[in-house]
């Protein structure tokens, strides 16, 4: 009972301290127009991206694709060396990072595509640049899907029980069915951490965008979109938690 009272008091005090800190920071920020500076920073960042979108797009794809290949080659060498020992831990760090990068390498170009559409709308359309963008997009996707398949097939080489058909629409479920208890535990632990960080980031972004909206106007759509993602995440977590 005493411990409960102590933690309740601690919580109330923490909320009061955070509110006071928030008020002080807000006062200082408004005195130096920090909100405007932050807004200007993001506007300038958007302009920079618009001006250099082709270079950013090509550079990102080249760097990620090369990194995936280098990490796969290095990771495979490391694993083969560890397997020869017939005992001890197999270091799969480089292979895991390589695999993770393939997903990032596929998603980020997709996020950058609307910028090209913006360039077209502004009348700066260049047919050859358009061909390069589209060609690179498909080539990048095919290459990364191929690398995913190569990495999983290598994983199966020293884990024969693992499922290895990455083109199967149910690949994730079938792969997880071949995981042992420790691998599942590590996956769930990582997923929960990612969930917590993601939700914290979403809340931070909602607060930030609200402040920007109040200060500078604009669309509420980004805030509603983030709110929807937050709701879906929270409801999914709740449903899964009360299932059993």
């Amino acid at each position, binding site marked *: 009972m005493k411990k409960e009272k102590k933690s309740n008091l601690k919580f109330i005090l923490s909320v009061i301290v955070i509110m006071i800190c928030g008020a002080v920071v807000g006062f200082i920020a408004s005195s130096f127009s920090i909100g405007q500076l932050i807004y200007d920073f993001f506007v300038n960042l958007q302009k920079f991206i618009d001006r250099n979108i082709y270079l950013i797009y090509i550079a990102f794809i080249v760097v990620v694709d090369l990194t995936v290949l280098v990490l796969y080659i290095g990771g495979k060498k490391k694993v083969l060396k560890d397997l020869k020992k*017939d*005992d*001890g*831990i*197999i270091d*799969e760090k480089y292979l895991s990072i390589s695999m993770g990068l393939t997903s990032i390498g596929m998603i980020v170009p997709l996020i950058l595509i609307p910028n090209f559409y913006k360039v077209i709308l502004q009348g700066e359309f260049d047919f050859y640049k358009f061909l390069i963008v589209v060609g690179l997009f498909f080539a990048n996707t095919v290459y990364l899907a191929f690398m995913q398949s190569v990495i999983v097939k290598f994983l199966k080489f*020293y*884990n024969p*029980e693992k499922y290895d058909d990455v083109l199967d629409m149910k690949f994730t479920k079938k792969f997880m069915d071949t995981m*042992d*208890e*420790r*691998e599942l535990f590590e996956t769930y632990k990582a997923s929960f951490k990612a969930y917590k960080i993601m939700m914290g980031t979403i809340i931070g972004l909602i607060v930030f965008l609200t402040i920007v909206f109040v200060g500078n106007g604009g669309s509420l759509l980004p805030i509603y979109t983030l709110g929807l993602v937050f709701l879906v995440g929270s409801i999914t977590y709740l449903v899964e938690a009360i299932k059993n």
Partner: protein
Amino acid sequence: MPLENKLKDFRNEKSLNQQELGALVGVSRQTISLIERGDYNPSITVCLKLAKVLGRSVEEIFTYVED
């Protein structure tokens, strides 16, 4: 971790490598390696399977050590 084990000793007695023991018990070689190092505490199901394969009792393989 408060669980110590003699898994490696009993595995060597049976002339099994980590891959083979993992296949018999239904876990990966990596998991067997982490159990032997004391970096992972297996579930009771895996403990019982290990005991059956190695012909030992769970208490012979695993020992709980007070902190």
